[in-house]
C-alpha cells in the first residue's frame, strides 16, 4: 500500500512531473521561468534543483520556437513536457501544434507519433489581466491529431498527466488554474497513469446529467447539491477528455437521465457543449426528455477582471437551465 498525502492540484502536478522525471530518463520539462523560479504558478517548484538545468529547461520567450523544438526533440527520442505560461500565450504556437504536431503521425502513415505534452494553465476566475484567462480547448479539439485532456482535481491532475506523457500522441493538457490551490485531496506518493479514454461519473443521479470539466466541475457539483435539496437527483459527469469524447458515457447519461446539460467557461459558439448536444441529437434523440441546454462563457473576449464573473458560469445559471429542462 503506498501512503497518501494531502495535496492541492498544483502540488499534485509538481509531484507528477517529478515522478515522470524520475521514472523516464528521456523526459524533460521546458518553458518560460520554470527553473529556479519554479514556473509562475510554481508547478515546477524545486524540480530544476532536483533534476538539473538540462531536464528542467528555461527557454527564451518564444512559444512557437520551443513548441516547435519539442517536436524535433521527439525525433531523437526525448519526451518533452512543455509549459505554456498562460492560456492565451499558446496562440503563437498554434501553427506548430496544428500544422505540425497534430499531423506528424498521419505524415508517417501512422508509424511514428510524437510523445509531446503541452501543459497550459487555463481559464478565468483568478482576477488576472487580459489574455491570462482564456479557455482555448475547442481550438485544439477541432484540429486533427491532438488529444485534449483536462483534469479537475489533484488526483486527476497527477494521474492524467502521467497518462498523457505515455499515450504516444501529442496531448494538450489544460490545467484549470482556478483549481490549483482550491482545496486538498489525498493522493498517493506515486501516481498510477490515469484513464484518458473515459469520462468519470463523479456524482450519481437519475433525473438530469450535468456535463462539465476543469473548474466547472465545482460549479456543477454546487448546482447538483442545490438540486438535491429540491429532490432532483443529478448526475455529474467529468469529461476529462475533450478529444476524443467519451461517447458511451454521454449516450448513457442521455438514456439513463433523459436530460443532459453542458457547462463550460469557453465561448458558446462551436464549443464542446455544441458538440455534445449534436452527438446526443444524432444518436439518442428519442431518449431526450428535454433539449440539451448549455451554460457557457460568452462569444466575446473574456472580460477584464471587474466583469469576469458575468462571463463565468455560476451555480445560479446552471440551476436556471436545469429548471428549464426539468419543466420542459
Amino acid at each position, binding site marked *: 500500500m503506498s501512503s497518501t498525502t494531502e495535496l492541492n492540484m498544483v502540488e499534485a502536478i509538481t509531484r507528477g512531473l517529478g515522478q515522470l522525471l524520475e521514472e523516464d530518463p528521456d523526459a524533460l520539462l521546458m518553458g518560460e521561468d520554470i527553473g529556479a523560479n519554479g514556473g509562475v504558478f510554481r508547478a515546477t517548484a524545486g524540480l530544476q534543483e532536483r533534476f538539473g538545468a538540462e531536464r528542467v529547461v528555461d527557454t527564451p520567450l518564444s512559444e512557437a520556437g520551443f513548441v516547435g523544438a519539442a517536436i524535433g526533440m521527439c525525433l*531523437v527520442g526525448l519526451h518533452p513536457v512543455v509549459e505554456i505560461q498562460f492560456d492565451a500565450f499558446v496562440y503563437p504556437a498554434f501553427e*506548430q501544434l496544428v500544422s*505540425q504536431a497534430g499531423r506528424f503521425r498521419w505524415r508517417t*502513415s501512422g508509424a511514428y507519433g510524437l510523445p509531446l505534452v503541452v501543459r497550459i494553465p487555463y481559464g478565468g476566475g483568478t482576477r488576472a489581466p487580459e489574455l491570462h484567462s482564456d479557455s482555448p480547448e475547442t481550438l485544439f479539439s477541432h484540429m486533427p491529431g491532438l488529444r485534449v485532456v483536462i483534469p479537475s482535481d489533484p488526483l486527476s491532475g497527477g494521474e492524467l498527466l502521467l497518462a498523457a506523457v505515455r499515450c504516444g500522441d501529442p496531448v494538450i493538457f489544460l490545467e484549470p488554474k482556478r483549481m490549483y490551490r482550491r482545496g486538498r485531496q489525498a493522493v498517493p506518493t506515486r501516481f498510477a497513469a490515469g484513464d484518458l479514454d473515459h469520462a468519470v461519473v463523479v456524482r450519481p443521479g437519475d433525473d438530469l446529467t450535468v456535463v462539465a470539466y476543469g473548474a466547472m466541475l465545482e460549479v456543477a457539483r454546487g448546482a447538483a447539491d442545490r438540486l438535491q435539496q429540491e429532490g432532483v437527483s443529478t448526475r455529474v459527469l467529468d469529461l476529462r477528455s475533450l478529444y*476524443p469524447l467519451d461517447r458511451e458515457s454521454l449516450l448513457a447519461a442521455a438514456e439513463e437521465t433523459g436530460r443532459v446539460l453542458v457547462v463550460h467557461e469557453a465561448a458558446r459558439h462551436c464549443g464542446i457543449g455544441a458538440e455534445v448536444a449534436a452527438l446526443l441529437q444524432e444518436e439518442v434523440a428519442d431518449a431526450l426528455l428535454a433539449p440539451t441546454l448549455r451554460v457557457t462563457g460568452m462569444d466575446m473576449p473574456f472580460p477584464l477582471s471587474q466583469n469576469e464573473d458575468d462571463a463565468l458560469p455560476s451555480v445560479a445559471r446552471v440551476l436556471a437551465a436545469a429548471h428549464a429542462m426539468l419543466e420542459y
Partner: protein
Amino acid sequence: MEGARTILGRPAPEMVTALREWSRELALELFSAMAGLRAFDERAVILQRQGRIGTYPTFYGEEAVQAASVRALQSRDWLFPTYRQTAVVTLRGCPPLVPLLMWRGHPGGWHDVMEYRVAPICVPVATNFPHAVGSAWGAKLRHLKLVALAYGGDGSTSAGDFHEACNLAAVMGAPVIFLITNNQWAISTPVSKQTKVRRVADKAAGYGMPGVRVDAFDVFACYQVVREAAARARAGGGPTLIEAIGYRLGPHGTADEPSLYRDQAADRLWEPMEPLRRTQLALVAAGLASAAELDQIRADAVEGLRAIGDAVEATSPVTIEEIAATVHRETPWGLLPDRLREPSWTDRSGDPG
C-alpha cells in the same frame, strides 16, 4: 553578384583550382547526386505535364546546394526539408517513387522519417527550423554526436519561426545548420522586398552565430561550407547560418508564370550558372573526369527514371478508412470505419461535374 565565383558560362578558375585538391571519387559522387536530383526534377515536371502528378515545385538550379548538403553530412544527421527539397530523401536511399507519390497526392508519398532521418517535407516555410533546432538540441542533451540541417529560402528568413529558431539554437548551442538558399525570389517577391539587410548571412549576427555565404551553384564550395559548419556543430560550436546565393532558374512551381513578375532577359543572364553543366565543365577542366563519362552518368540517371510514371500510376490507392487509422495511435471512435462514412459516401452520381 558578390560571393559568386564564376565567369558566366565557364567554370571559374578558382573552382577548377580548388578541384585539384579533390579526390575523383568524391567529386564524382557529388556529380552523380546532382545528376540524380536533376533527373528526378525533370521527370517530375514531365509527369505533371502528363497529368500523372499534381502541381510540383521544381528545384531546377538547386541541385548543387542540395546534393552538397546531404553528402557533407553523415547518415545519422537529420535533414528538415521543405517542398523545395522533395528529392533529398532519395540521396539517403529512399526510392524516388516515394516523393513522386507525394506529388500525386498518394499517402505512399510519406517516407519513413526514422529510417532516412529526413523529416516530412514542411509546406509552411520556416516551420521546419524549430524542429531542426529541437532535434539538434535534444541530441546534444542526449550526448549523441549528431547534427541537424534545415532548409529554407530567402523568403523564409522573414518568418517568425526563423527568428525564434535561430535565437533558440544560439542560446542552447544547438548543433544545427540553417541552410538558406537565397534564390532571390519568393514566388513573385524579390529578395529586395523581403529584407533590408544586404546579405541574408548578416542576420546571423543578430543571434550571435556565424553567418557564411557561398555560391549555391558551386557544389564543391557548398560541400566545404556545410562540412565546416557540421564539424563546428559536432565539436560543440553551436549553430551556423549559411546563405547559399543563387537564382531561381525556373518557376516557383508548375502552376507559376514568372513572366508576370520578372524580367525574362535577366533570367537568361543567370542560365549559364546552371550547376550541372557548370560542374561538368569544371570536372573536365580539372582533369578529374571525361565529358563522355559524365554524360553517361547523366544519361543513366535519366534512364533509371524513364518508366517511373507507370509505377506511380500503378500504385494502388489507399482507402480513406486506412488513412483515418493513421492519425492517432488508438483510432478515436469517430474515425473508425463503421462511423467514418454513410453507406452512400462513395456514390458520386448526381454530383455537379
